[in-house]
Every structure is written in structure tokens, then in C-alpha cells.
């Protein structure tokens, strides 16, 4: 069912998933708070990329709405963390 489309998008999805694990290591073992926040932002961007690639693989154009929504809303969470850290350390 999934394997309708040729290989390149699946390879793209797998590489992005492995990169999520790499960013999760920095989120778990990061020494300071800005490390963890930047790792969370990287995870957000990678999740949006995976959603676009999976929308191509599933051949559903309405799934792109979810990815656009994530790309918009992940900005708000990051800006709140930045507000807290900047207000504390400056």
C-alpha cells in the first residue's frame, strides 16, 4: 500500500527520522537550556519535512494542510521559550 512511489522520498523520510534521533540526543543530554531549545526547534523543522515527504508518498493533497499548520505553530512555542530564557539571563 505504501510502496506505490519509487525510492527517493522513502530514503528522504528515513534520513530525516535518523536526524530526529540525533537531535533527541542533544535534547536529552544538552548541558544548558539554549541547547535544548535549539534542539526542539530542529525537531520541529524535521517533523515538518517528514510530513511533506509523507504527503507525497501517501498521495493525499489534504495532508499538506497539517504540515503547513505545524510550520506556522511551531514558531509560537519557540518564541515563548526564547522569551523566558532572554528575560532570565539578560
Amino acid at each position, binding site marked *: 500500500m505504501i510502496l506505490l512511489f519509487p525510492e527517493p522520498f522513502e530514503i528522504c523520510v528515513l534520513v530525516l527520522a535518523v536526524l530526529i534521533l540525533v537531535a533527541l540526543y542533544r535534547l536529552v543530554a544538552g548541558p544548558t537550556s539554549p541547547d535544548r531549545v535549539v534542539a526542539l526547534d530542529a525537531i520541529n523543522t524535521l517533523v515538518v519535512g517528514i510530513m511533506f515527504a509523507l504527503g507525497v508518498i501517501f498521495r493525499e493533497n489534504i495532508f499538506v*494542510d497539517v504540515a*503547513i*499548520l505545524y510550520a*506556522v505553530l511551531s*514558531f*509560537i512555542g519557540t*518564541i515563548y521559550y526564547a522569551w523566558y530564557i532572554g*528575560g532570565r539571563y*539578560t
Partner: protein
Amino acid sequence: MKQSNIVRITADIMFPFIMIFGAYVVLHGHLTPGGGFQGGAVMASGVVLLLIAHCDKDIKTLIPTQILKNVETFGLLLFGLSALAAVILGSGFFTNWLVNTGLLFGTPVEYGPNPGYLNTGGVIPVMNIAVGLEVLAALSVIAVIMFRSTEPDCGGEEQ
């Protein structure tokens, strides 16, 4: 504490697009993924973004809480009345009394997978709009009240 220009201008540019996308999710709730609750949550996220970007101004004039409370009550009343209208018209509670009648939202649909038209669905789009208004107002009121009570002067005590 005043926010930097990058944050404020980016929030000003992104706020109308977030509200338009939330309205799209609410109005197309019976055709595409989404619905009242999801679209209302997206629009409330836009209000939360506006709250943090302009926190140096007066919050009460920027986002008036009393209007939001009235909007929430109106949404809940619209939801209940659209269900009670079915009882008045002679059928059960929560009966879909607008579908397949040719009136507003009353165009019949054909069976099978199709993109669909906006003018179908009966009473479902009305309930979507009601729940969307209610969720938008409720989540915005919670965020604004928690912000105003925990940070009276917008968090400038460290400087």
C-alpha cells in the same frame, strides 16, 4: 520589558494569516480534516502570539476580555439553539434538520470519494462555527487571564 523589533514585526505579519487559516479549518470542517475545535485552537494560538509580541502595551485595550466572554456565551447559545430548532420543527434533539432541503448548507452530495462543495452538510457547518467561536474565546480568555495575573507589568523585573 519591550520585545525586539524582529519579534513584533514578524508577529504582526503572521497574525492575519494564522486567523485566516483557522477560519479556513473551521469553515471547511465537513470537507477537509479539521473542525470546530481544531480551528478554534489555531485561532487562539494566534491570539497568544499577539499577547507575547505586544506585551508592553496595555493588554486590556488590545485584547478586551469582556468581549471574549460574550463571544464564548454566544457560541454556546448558538450550539444549543441549533439543536433545539430540530425539536421545534418536530423531530428529535440534535436531528440534522437542514440537510438535503436546498436551503443554506442544504445541497445534496453524491456518494463516493469527491472533493465536495462548501454548501453541503446541513446543520454541521453551523455547529462548526459555533464550537469554533466558543473554543477561540475560551482558550484566549484562559491565556489572557493567566498572563495578566502572573505578569502584571509584563515581566520586566529582572532588568
